[in-house]
């Protein structure tokens, strides 16, 4: 009980609450401006959170990401341009509703579904992760090796688009993770004689390069500044919401649970959760024909799913140190910097830290309601902020932010080089999530493999000798074989419905 109260006190104080509100407003802006993603918001925020205590730092990240995912729907509804990739799945639907004069109603329902989805994911986090952590306490290097490999495999097989490109993207991330002194032998690898590289590549500059500089380059490469004219909105924000919720409560629950699950899978984040929830909602709906003409049902499913995905991604990140999406990949870096090593022990250590963490999730999701309401009423501000003014400002934050982590110019170079490489790869449809996971999990993968091998003198069969380890190993092999099995299954039973699997 003491720890619980202590945890509450860590959140309900002026500083942390102020940080949450400020971060939510920041997330609102970044999310509402097309071309700026929630991951970019978090990557730009990290250099600032670096100088805070652990609780406000995490609070800032949770509030920013949750708010950015909702805010992505605002330009989607008014302009038919998704603010973040997580809104892309249902942007057509919400824009059509807006054209019928129901923009605020749509966004209001959207907001409430986002809050419910976020809270649902949080409840799962609160109730599932401590018991998972107890299981994880028995894990040794064998299990962690399989877990890391499972995470990396998922990131390839869940990726939208070419699996080959996802694989190559993963290789880039893994390669970056090997830079620096080898943990086992102390031999320097790929350091090119640069002393700053001995400790390895810090992944905050990498994130800033991959998600911010890359987007800035995309903006300057594209020619048209032309903006579509936003539709007018005069309707009420929340009046119709209770009716929609009563009618589609099943969709909210389904979207939320699906979103949490997909969020928890490494490599798949809020955007994929929204796509799958929308597709599933459509296939299970009684009014399939209405989809695509401005039907609120699809929005309910998908907007619950993307926000619950954000919370769900924290479960594997906190319990195993395996990030569920690109945002939690950044979080893991922040946690290490704050001395809160992710892993089961985080739940066993005394003090209010864990309760504070859980409380932060509830507060950050609930605060979306009032702030989101204001944002919907004042949507014009976000929509009309010109990107030609904003992008240069963001570039400055990239430079200063990359420098601020270690006060090292090398980090600005890293940000630049990675940003340019990411630009080339992203322009050619290489997904970025596998690269980030490779960078974050590469160290875990290699170190757990090497220490297991040292324990058993190089006996590879040891990876299948412990029961949990063997189970996880089997799961990894199953994930690898899954595409082949599915292909065989489809060939045996040609589907009549023709489920689309070429979602962009």
């Amino acid at each position, binding site marked *: 009980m003491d720890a619980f109260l202590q945890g509450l006190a860590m959140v309900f104080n002026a500083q942390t609450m102020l940080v949450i509100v400020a971060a939510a407003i920041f997330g609102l802006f970044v999310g509402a401006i097309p071309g700026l993603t929630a991951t970019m918001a978090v990557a730009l925020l990290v*250099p*600032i959170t*670096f*100088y805070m205590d652990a609780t406000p730092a995490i609070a800032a990240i949770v509030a920013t990401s949750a708010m950015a995912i909702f805010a992505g729907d605002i330009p989607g509804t008014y302009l038919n341009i998704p603010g973040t990739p997580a809104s892309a799945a249902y942007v057509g639907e919400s824009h059509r509703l807006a054209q019928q004069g129901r923009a605020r109603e749509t966004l209001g329902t959207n907001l409430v579904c986002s809050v419910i989805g976020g809270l649902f994911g949080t409840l799962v986090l609160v109730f599932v992760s401590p018991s998972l952590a107890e299981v994880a306490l028995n894990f040794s290097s064998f299990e962690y090796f399989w877990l890391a490999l499972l995470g990396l495999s998922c990131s390839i097989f869940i990726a939208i688009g070419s699996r*080959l*490109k996802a*694989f*190559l993207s993963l*290789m880039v991330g*893994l*390669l970056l993770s*090997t830079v620096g002194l*080898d943990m*086992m*032998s102390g*031999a320097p*690898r*790929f350091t090119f004689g640069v002393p700053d590289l001995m400790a390895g590549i810090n992944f905050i500059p990498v994130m800033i390069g991959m998600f911010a*500089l890359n987007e*800035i*380059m*995309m903006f*300057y*490469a*594209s*020619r048209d*500044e032309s903006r579509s004219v936003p539709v007018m909105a005069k309707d009420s924000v929340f009046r119709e919401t209770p009716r929609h919720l009563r009618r589609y409560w099943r969709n909210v629950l389904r979207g939320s649970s699906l979103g949490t699950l997909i969020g928890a899978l490494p490599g798949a984040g809020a955007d994929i959760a929204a796509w799958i929830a929308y597709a599933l909602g459509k296939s299970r709906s009684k009014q399939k024909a209405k989809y695509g003409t401005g039907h609120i049902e699809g929005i309910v499913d998908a907007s619950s799913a993307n926000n619950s995905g954000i919370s769900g991604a924290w479960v594997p990140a906190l319990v195993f140190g395996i990030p569920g999406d690109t945002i939690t990949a950044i979080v893991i870096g922040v946690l290490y910097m704050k001395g809160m090593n992710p892993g089961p022990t985080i739940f066993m250590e005394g003090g209010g830290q864990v309760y504070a963490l859980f409380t932060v999730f509830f507060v950050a999701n609930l605060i979306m309601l009032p702030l989101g309401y204001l944002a919907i009423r004042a949507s014009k501000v976000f929509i009309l902020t*010109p990107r*030609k*003014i904003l*992008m*240069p*400002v963001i*570039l*400055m*934050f*990239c*430079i*200063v932010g990359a*420098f*601020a982590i270690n*006060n090292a*110019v090398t980090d*600005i*170079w890293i*940000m*630049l080089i990675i*940003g*340019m490489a990411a*630009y*080339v*790869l992203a322009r*050619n449809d290489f997904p970025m999530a596998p690269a980030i996971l490779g960078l974050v999990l*590469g160290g875990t*993968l*290699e170190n757990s493999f090497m220490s297991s*091998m*040292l324990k058993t*003198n*190089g006996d590879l069969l040891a990876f299948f000798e412990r029961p949990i380890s063997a189970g996880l190993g089997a799961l990894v092999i199953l994930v690898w074989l899954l595409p082949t099995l599915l292909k065989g299954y489809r060939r045996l039973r040609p589907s009549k419905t023709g489920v689309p699997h070429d979602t962009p």
Partner: protein
Amino acid sequence: MRDFLLGLVFAIGGGVIVAVARTYPTMPTLQFGPSLFPTIIGIGMILGGVLLTLTSLTAWRAALGDSRGVVGRFDWRGLALSLVPCALVVFYILTAEILGAMICMAVSMLALMLMRGARLWLAVIVALVVSGTIYWLFSRYLLIPLPEGLLLSQRLPFSSLSLAG
């Protein structure tokens, strides 16, 4: 076409990585050591790169059969414009020690805004206010030693040096 080239880059890069990894020492008790993972990654890149090159060739041939002129004109202007922000990052790295972070940032932002046709007065105001705010925020509040530059050294009311002293 691009996939073809990228595939080649990956394959050649993978080869280089394997070659470099061969030079790393091995552990005394095991047959492998720090070279194992880079070697696996290098081999992965070679295989993936070759596969990408081959699949792009097949796709290319199929596209050529369908219609002519599939390969559009390369957007050189877009490429040049996308490199401007990168050039400005290099500009910052090279000149911040002399000009100071604040002036560097203001100049870079002004250039970028004018390039996309922002109004002059707006661009000047935003560049000055934002560079001042970032400098103040980072050097005063977060205590990051952003370069002051030779021009403004010791003259800023909120410089990090004056704080230390």
